[in-house]
């Protein structure tokens, strides 16, 4: 009899060790809130850590969900190569717009970022680049004074150090709360790109989901090479505004990356998993002697 019990205990331990610890599709009943996310493409619930491991690409339908600036940099850059600049630049409230400061604080609290744009230098397969990423989680990645200034400074650094420039855009456009000052950032960034281009600098613009408004109508559209990432809404006016204006339904696939490719507005569409290797290849073809570190 004791032999039988020992045997049973051993089998139970083995079951616990080999079966229960393994990844299973059954859902434990004590899941914390928000651990599953719904794919925007196919509506399937996906285990968040799993989606994170897949860099935000849905394992079922291939939809590319939005990712944070830090995640983007970790996917694109060589490990430990990123050196951030202008980290501590923060927004003021030049028009004294009510609730703007609170909105900024909320954005900072939820994203742990000082502003919507992260910039610096880093390496892609050993090639040094000036790189910037807009994060749509921070006030829709909108461009106010800080984003405009940081983008401009990044372009100026790329020009000064003869580095190729790569900017990942994800933005609803100019930041409403800074009004006309936001609008003027469109000129500021575009003018800086004109100077960079005169110095024969390479600028690759990567338009990710979503890239619209004042960001689309300035630096995001001005790449020597414009790349659209899969699953991206790209355009000048938002679909809601267009629908209200023309008072008719929008065609299927309007303002998608395929739409932009078909109408000649972007050079190519890339899946996220191909982004680094493709950028790397493009950088190699444009490598210049004399880049300063």
């Amino acid at each position, binding site marked *: 009899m004791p032999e039988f019990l020992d045997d049973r205990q051993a089998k139970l331990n083995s079951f616990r060790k080999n079966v229960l610890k393994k990844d299973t599709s059954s859902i434990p009943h004590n899941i914390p809130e928000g651990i599953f996310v719904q794919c925007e493409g196919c509506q399937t619930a996906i285990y968040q850590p799993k989606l994170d491991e897949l860099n935000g690409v849905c394992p079922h339908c291939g939809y590319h969900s939005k990712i944070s600036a830090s995640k983007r940099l970790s996917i694109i850059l060589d490990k430990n190569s990123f050196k951030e600049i202008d980290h501590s630049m923060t927004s003021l409230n030049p028009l004294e717009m009510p609730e703007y400061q609170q909105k900024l604080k909320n954005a900072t609290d939820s994203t742990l970022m000082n502003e919507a744009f992260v910039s610096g230098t880093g390496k892609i397969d050993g090639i040094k680049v000036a790189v910037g990423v807009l994060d749509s989680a921070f006030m829709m990645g909108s461009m106010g*004074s800080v984003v405009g200034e940081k983008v401009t400074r990044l372009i100026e650094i790329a020009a000064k150090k003869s580095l190729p420039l790569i900017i990942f855009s994800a933005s609803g456009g100019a930041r409403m709360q800074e009004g006309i000052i936001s609008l003027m950032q469109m000129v500021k960034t575009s003018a800086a790109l004109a100077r960079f281009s005169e110095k024969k600098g390479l600028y690759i613009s990567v338009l990710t989901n979503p890239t619209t408004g004042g960001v689309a109508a300035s630096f995001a559209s*001005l790449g020597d090479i414009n790349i659209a990432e899969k699953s991206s809404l790209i355009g000048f006016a938002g679909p809601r505004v*267009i629908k209200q204006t023309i008072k008719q339904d929008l065609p299927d696939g309007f303002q998608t990356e395929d739409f932009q490719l078909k109408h000649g507005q972007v050079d190519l569409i890339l899946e996220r998993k191909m982004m680094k290797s493709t950028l790397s290849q493009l950088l190699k073809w444009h490598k210049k002697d004399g880049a300063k570190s």
Partner: protein
Amino acid sequence: MMDIQNSAWEIVRLARHPKRPTSKTLIKELFPDFIELHGDRLYGDDPSIIGGIASFNEKPITIIAQEKGVTTDDKIYRNFGMAHPEGYRKALRLMKQAEKFRRPIFCIIDTPGAYPGIGAEERGQAGAIATNLREMSQITVPIITVVLSEGGSGGALGIGVGDSVCMFENSIYSILSPEGFASILYKDSSKAAEAAALMKLTAADLFQLGVIDKIILEDVGLHINYQTGFNHLKNHLESELFRLSSFSPEKLLENRYLKYRNIGQYHIE
């Protein structure tokens, strides 16, 4: 507070007054020998933007102007001053032409915004405006810009980059319409008057913010009598052309770059 609110909204209403003259009238008054040049050489001719050459003080000048239209039919033909990409591309073509022949450029802004439509998106509205911003920052002849009535967002900016930017006293220049702003801020577009007061969109506001260089006074208002206002603009254009003609192309571009480079307020710890 009430006064400021009223005055901002009052200016919005004056800027959109049905009797306020449009660009065509301004061109007729200031540049009677104007010859219009059409088309972007790529797709079509956009009637929302008028371009051409005229003489001013016996010297040639290129004119680029957004036209909202006057009668109902004309307004529809002009698409209410809301340009498509081909309008921006025509403007740029004519600005490059002005640069080639070394004549200054005068831009007249009057638009609710760039047209938000399917065709405009298909033909690259964002890219067309972006390209103009980049190219206008590098054009080596003087560019003088006036906001006649309404400067709506990126659509205005697409022909609005200049060495000298002025606004008529009762014009507005903003990131979006007060109605649009109200519908986002208050979820209610009928609160446009309140939104207008917050937005800092009048000539006086923009002058104070350092975004424009000069306010052109209107006397009784352009909608009642435009002669005085147009004369003020003429004098301003004369003096600015004279001032800017003394700069070398390099100096001109440097100043233009710094003008926009310095706009923005931020904090660094």
